[in-house]
């Protein structure tokens, strides 16, 4: 175990001391614009390197393919290396430099060497002599503005290609619409089996002039040889030619006044829900504009008449791709409410469009439709439009022509003081001071009350002896000596223990003095005095002066003793 640990430490030490080097290598220093070559960045002496960044100066497209690591131990020297593979495809012909590659290791940046690459123009090998090629074309060389044009991309290969990545160009100046997923067919040409993959896109030009559609390209891998251990592949890049097309303005001659920009081949049909209705009732007129081309922006057809009222419903629109063409149907529904009884006629409605196939403006119209309107039952002009919940016409975007400040406030009322503006910060201070004073008052009221209560009890306890003493001096002169003496002693005890003195009896004494500190002797003496007083008071024995004196002395003595001991 120690041995393996030692080896590990040794390896780590070697690895950490190894010098870090970055090498940039390319498969070839010469290539054509439709070729792809391999580029590798080898990092020697480091394990945790970031993915290298290669400076292409905007002349190449670079795609990271993956990385691999290696550890070599030769004569106890350990070397670790990581290799990153890239695919390099040029953007334009010329002599360029590639690199340096930069990697970041533990916060430090390491750079590689730079390599020169010569990029030549695409080799002009006839398609039939190739093993694979791509081509792009349009179905016409010139078109009218808004006319449908089909862009076709074709990949033909008689050898197998893997991991194909297609780059369809940006169709600037056109609205593009996919004509479905790619289609693959196998064709036998001169006895050779070719695979043909086709992608079609429908383009509608939005501006006139000579437009160019940039080349499409495809990156793929070509299998060179296959063995038991796997297949050897080579990256390939195929680039098509750019395509030019001339987009013409629509002719100005014979342009109908009601032409609204509809381009294609269209038809219009009209149908009425009911031909016989009562005055005030409604019937629905449906107008359907259908055909080849996009009719989404076709406006609501207008019917000018005083014989009936028209309420437009929200139009519906449907667009489909059929046989490499866009077909659309726009349906307008109108509620027709006759204003008078009798026969009324919905006039013919005409649409004008430009047909690119004929290169002429054409028009189509509906037949006039007559409605038999019967008089209303109650004679009132009552409109029954409950079936039409949404009578708004198609919403259009509002175009912002300019921006400016929001308008000023015009109402003089904005100058007036509002209720909230009357509140001043001083009011807040006053309120808080009031609230604070109130709180302090209530606080003291509560605490002072408790204190007085407590103090009263304490005062009574402290003054118990002086109260006793005051009454004791006049006790002998009292007519009912015994009852007065007994009451005086009870009151003294009551004051001392915060009890009702009058209700204290001899039997309560044990309970009262249970937790007090007075001695048993004192308690016994107190009980004796209570008993003597009770005997004289309730036993019918008449007390003489000497007995009075004796009791007076004993009473004073016991109270003095209690005063000391409590």
């Amino acid at each position, binding site marked *: 175990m120690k041995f393996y640990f030692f080896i590990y430490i040794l390896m780590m030490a070697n690895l950490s001391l190894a010098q870090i080097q970055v090498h940039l290598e390319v498969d070839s220093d010469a290539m054509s614009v439709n070729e792809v070559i391999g580029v590798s960045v080898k990092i020697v002496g480091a394990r945790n390197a970031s993915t290298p960044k290669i400076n292409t100066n905007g002349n190449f497209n670079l795609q990271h393919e993956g990385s691999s690591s290696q550890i070599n131990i030769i004569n106890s020297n350990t070397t670790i290396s990581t290799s990153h593979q890239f695919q390099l495809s040029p953007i334009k012909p010329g002599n360029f430099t590639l690199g340096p590659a930069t990697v970041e290791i533990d916060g430090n940046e390491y750079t590689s060497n730079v390599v020169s690459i010569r990029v030549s123009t695409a080799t002009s090998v006839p398609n039939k002599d190739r093993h694979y090629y791509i081509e792009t074309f349009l179905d016409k060389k010139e078109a009218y503005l808004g006319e449908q044009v089909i862009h076709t991309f074709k990949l033909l290969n008689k050898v197998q290609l893997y991991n194909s990545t297609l780059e369809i160009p940006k169709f600037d100046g056109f609205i593009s619409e996919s004509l479905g997923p790619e289609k693959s067919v196998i064709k036998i040409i001169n006895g050779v089996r070719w695979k043909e993959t086709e992608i079609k896109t429908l383009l509608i030009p939005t501006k006139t002039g000579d437009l160019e559609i940039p080349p499409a390209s495809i990156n793929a891998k070509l299998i060179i040889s296959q063995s038991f251990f796997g297949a050897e592949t080579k990256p390939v890049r195929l680039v098509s030619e750019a395509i030019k097309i001339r987009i013409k303005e629509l002719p100005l001659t014979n342009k109908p006044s009601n032409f609204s920009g509809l381009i294609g081949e269209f038809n219009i049909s009209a149908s009425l829900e009911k031909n016989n209705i009562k005055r005030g009732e409604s019937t629905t007129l449906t107008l359907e504009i259908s055909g080849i081309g996009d009719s989404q922006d076709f406006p609501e057809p207008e019917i000018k008449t005083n014989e009936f009222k028209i309420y437009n419903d929200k139009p519906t629109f449907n667009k489909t791709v059929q046989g490499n063409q866009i077909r659309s149907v726009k349906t307008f529904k109108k509620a027709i409410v006759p204003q008078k009884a009798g026969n009324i006629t919905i006039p013919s409605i005409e649409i004008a469009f430009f047909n690119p196939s004929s290169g002429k403006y054409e028009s189509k119209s509906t037949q006039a439709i007559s409605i038999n309107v019967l008089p209303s039952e109650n004679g009132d002009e009552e409109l029954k439009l409950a079936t039409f919940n949404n009578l708004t016409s198609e919403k259009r975007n509002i175009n912002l022509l300019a921006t400016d400040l929001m308008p000023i406030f015009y109402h003089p009322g904005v100058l007036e003081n509002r209720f*909230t503006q009357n*509140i001043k910060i001083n*009011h807040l201070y006053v309120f808080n001071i009031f609230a604070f004073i*109130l709180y302090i008052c209530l606080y003291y009221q509560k605490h002072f009350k408790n204190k007085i209560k407590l103090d009263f009890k304490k005062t009574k306890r402290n003054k118990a002896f002086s109260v006793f003493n005051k009454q004791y001096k006049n006790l002998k002169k009292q007519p009912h000596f015994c009852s007065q003496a007994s009451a005086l002693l009870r009151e003294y005890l009551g004051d001392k223990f915060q009890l009702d003195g009058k209700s204290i009896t001899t039997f309560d004494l044990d309970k009262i003095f249970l937790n007090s500190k007075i001695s048993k002797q004192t308690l016994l003496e107190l009980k004796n005095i209570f008993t003597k007083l009770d005997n004289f008071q309730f036993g019918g024995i008449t007390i003489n002066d000497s007995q009075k004196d004796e009791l007076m002395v004993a009473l004073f003595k016991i109270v003095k003793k209690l005063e000391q001991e409590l």
Partner: protein
Amino acid sequence: MISKILFLYFLLIFSSSTLALNESDTKIFIDSNTSYDQGDYKNALLKYQELAKRFPKSGELYYNLANAYYKNGELGKSIFYYIKARKILPRSGDVKYNLEYARNQKIDKQESDKNLLDLFHIPFNENELLILVTVCALAFWTIMIISLYKRNFIIMYTRYITVSLLILTSTLLILHNFSEKNIGVVTAQETSVFSTIGVNSIKLFTLHEGSEIVVLDKKDNWNLITIGDNRKGWIPSDKIIN
């Protein structure tokens, strides 16, 4: 007792002198709006300024004044008055829109795309904050008085909540009042900010019209200002509005 105090408080509020809108003010306001509509922004400005002295709590008036300044080509002043209007009408969409509109015209980019004075923006005006503080204070003192006689879990926690709300709203009020006194905007086309008072000292940086500043101190005819990012310096008073 509490009801008596509240009565006194609200009596105080209602009895405070209210500024009535008289006919002459209405006429000046209508005239200034007419001048604005006719493109006579200088005249509109004079009248709006006259009204602003009498109605310093009308956010709409500051807004109109700011619009007139903007139309008159005085970007710095317009931004300043839009900010003042926003302090009184903090949730007005028109004020917010026009302030941003005016800010888009200024040259200087500040505080990593954030406007310095937006840091002090509170979505309540002074009066609303005063009401909030008052309500919180009322709740706080009420719960304090209740807690004198009754103590339980709910009362204790309500006391903590009300005191926290009182501190929060009071802090917002203090911040609001601080920002009202210390905000400023550069009105000169271009002006330098110096390290010390006097044009002979070192020029630290240059500001352009509409740049928002916070005034930290004033001395003679100079203001110590900051634009955030630890950038401070002295600027002549006549180059800014504060």
